[in-house]
């Protein structure tokens, strides 16, 4: 690949590249975009028809060749995951959509569900065909009630139009969706906990292996993907793998919905090619910070923060670069932390989230995330911390890494580690002076 790179056209890594055009997010915010008639008048379900005319394996191969990596946080190659399904053996197979979006700083899936539900249905239909699953499950977090309603209406419309049900789109393939509503638990975003929750059990994660392809929903072969991953598959089938692979960097292809929150001029979701820089996203698209900033959380609150600097702003937002800087791309949910926010206070907030969401199943998480870390933060913020406490916290988070039953404990420990690495002086100031370097702010828009 690299030896032909000199003659090949440069990959698209900027929103401002004239070859780039928004696809995933093109219809969000347009009145009426959630209806079937709107969707169809913009080329909707043509990709599904095209896919149904191909061999399932050809669809899997196309998605593999596109370089698409899962947009739910872990970045696992989507086509490869689809190829893990066992051979068809007469058992029911499931395609599952993870629409539990709950990682703080992430809000892209909600807009897709609310304003473009047919895009998701089409993506799941394509994936269902590719892995030969005739039932799809959409697990929507309980709070997304508006999205749930939009999706339910879209499913009804699709059934009435022969897009779901028996012999979809005039083919021999049967496919239908089950829409399922969660009830407010972050852990349900973890794929095996989600499956337990769907089955009407408490949402504790399951031991892996077996992986969902072997034993997923009801113990049957299943594949699970994020909302955005399914939507990307629609455009990959419509425009071809090469189109998708022309965007992005070596290890990160295609377009991505990045989210920006925190004090910036225009927070929100922006569709940008992979490999665009933080500068392009935060400074150019989101209008820059509205007050001096000191850190960037790149992909949801579990991803380790990066200090605000010119060097950081120039980093391409892709999987490899984030890993090289000991962080993660996660969901692409960028949070800008202002100078005047006390880092200890900010990370108490983050830890409080994971404490609240720990399912209590395993010891490192129950004792670490849910019990001792928040208590230590409370002690520090009360001005009663010692240097020994800081050492103990650092030791504790080290022991939470890779020791828990599921990655929730890591999601809590990793960002704390990074906050110590880059802002230890703020922790020390709090210990030495008994008060924060940056006192709590009581600001709220009038």
């Amino acid at each position, binding site marked *: 690949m690299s030896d032909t790179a000199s003659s090949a056209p440069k990959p698209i890594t900027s929103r401002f590249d004239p070859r780039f055009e928004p696809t995933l*997010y093109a219809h*969000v*915010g347009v009145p009426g975009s959630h209806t079937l008639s709107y969707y169809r008048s913009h080329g909707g379900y043509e990709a599904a028809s095209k896919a149904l005319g191909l061999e399932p394996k050809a669809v899997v191969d196309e998605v593999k060749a596109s370089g698409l990596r899962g947009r739910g946080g872990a970045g696992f190659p989507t086509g490869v995951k689809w190829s893990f399904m066992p051979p068809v053996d007469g058992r029911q197979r499931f395609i599952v959509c993870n629409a539990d*979006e*709950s990682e*703080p*700083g*992430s*809000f892209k*899936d*909600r*807009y897709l569900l609310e304003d473009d539900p047919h895009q998701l249905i089409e993506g799941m239909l394509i994936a269902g065909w590719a892995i030969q699953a005739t*039932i799809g499950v959409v697990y929507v*977090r*309980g*709070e*997304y*009630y*508006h999205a749930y309603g939009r999706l339910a209406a879209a499913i009804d419309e699709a059934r009435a139009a022969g897009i779901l049900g028996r012999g979809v789109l005039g083919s021999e393939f049967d496919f239908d969706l*089950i*829409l*399922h*509503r*969660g*009830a*407010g*638990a*972050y852990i349900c975003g973890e794929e095996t906990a989600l499956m337990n929750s769907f*089955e*009407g*059990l*408490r*949402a504790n994660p399951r031991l892996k292996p077996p992986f969902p392809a072997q034993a997923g929903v*009801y113990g049957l072969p299943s594949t699970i993907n994020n909302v955005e991953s399914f939507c990307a598959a629609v455009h990959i089938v419509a425009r071809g793998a090469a189109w998708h692979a022309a965007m992005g960097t070596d290890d990160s292809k295609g377009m991505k919905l990045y*989210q920006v*929150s*925190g*004090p910036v001029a*225009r*927070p*929100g*979701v*922006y569709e940008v090619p992979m490999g665009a820089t933080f500068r392009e996203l935060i400074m150019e*698209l*989101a209008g820059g910070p509205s007050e001096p900033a000191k850190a960037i959380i790149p992909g949801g*609150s579990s991803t380790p923060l990066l200090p605000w600097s010119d060097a950081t702003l120039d980093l391409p937002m892709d999987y490899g670069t984030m890993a090289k800087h000991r962080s993660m791309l996660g969901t692409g*949910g960028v*949070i800008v932390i*202002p100078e005047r926010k006390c880092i200890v206070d*900010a990370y108490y*907030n983050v830890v409080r*989230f994971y404490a*609240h*969401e720990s399912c209590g199943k395993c010891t490192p998480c129950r004792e670490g995330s849910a019990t001792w870390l928040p208590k230590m933060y409370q002690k520090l913020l009360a001005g009663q911390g010692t240097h020994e406490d800081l050492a103990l916290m650092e030791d504790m988070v080290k022991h939470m890494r890779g020791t828990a039953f599921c990655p929730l404990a890591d999601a809590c420990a990793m960002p704390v580690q990074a906050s110590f690495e880059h802002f230890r002086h703020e922790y020390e100031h709090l210990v030495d002076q008994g008060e924060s370097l940056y006192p*709590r702010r*009581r*600001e*709220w*828009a*009038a």
Partner: protein
Amino acid sequence: MSSRQPLPTVTPFFADKQERLSEILARYPEYGRRSALMPLLWEVQRAERHVSEARVEEIAEILGLHATEVKGVMSFYGTYHEHPVGRYHLQVCRTLSCSLAGADTLADFLEDELDLVNGETDPEGRFSLQYVECLGSCGTAPVLQVNDTYFERVSRSRCRALLDAMRRDTLPEPTLERGGDNEPNAPDQEGGAA
């Protein structure tokens, strides 16, 4: 039947809703009947603003489970209530992005205005206040969820207007906020209809 002591005053919730019950059960494959547990809890809670012991037993019976199994699932999740919440269940997100946008002050404001603390319901059963975690509305922070509806970019004046509206039982339709790539129209002030 006669050896049990059923609660004689309670008519089963689904007694006059058999069609709805069948519709919910039919969503799932026969071997996956238990999947209907959460939807049934939702169905009851939507109508009664909580799920009582009697309803737990009823759902257990429908699904062929023990009441403790139903209760075990129900208690796992933060959004099923054992006791009735008010007609306006105010849920304030205080997670990082909302906190950076003033959610802690918003929470204090609501505590003062309603004379409630986190988890309480007022004596008239009008308002409940609950702190919740990230609602996926971080780009339009701070967010206040009233029952099932999001009100976003809740400023002090907007919050006041919303409370006044709820006191008059005239909760407005929310404006759909988008932000980012979809920011043609600025939010209005009344927290209300577009």
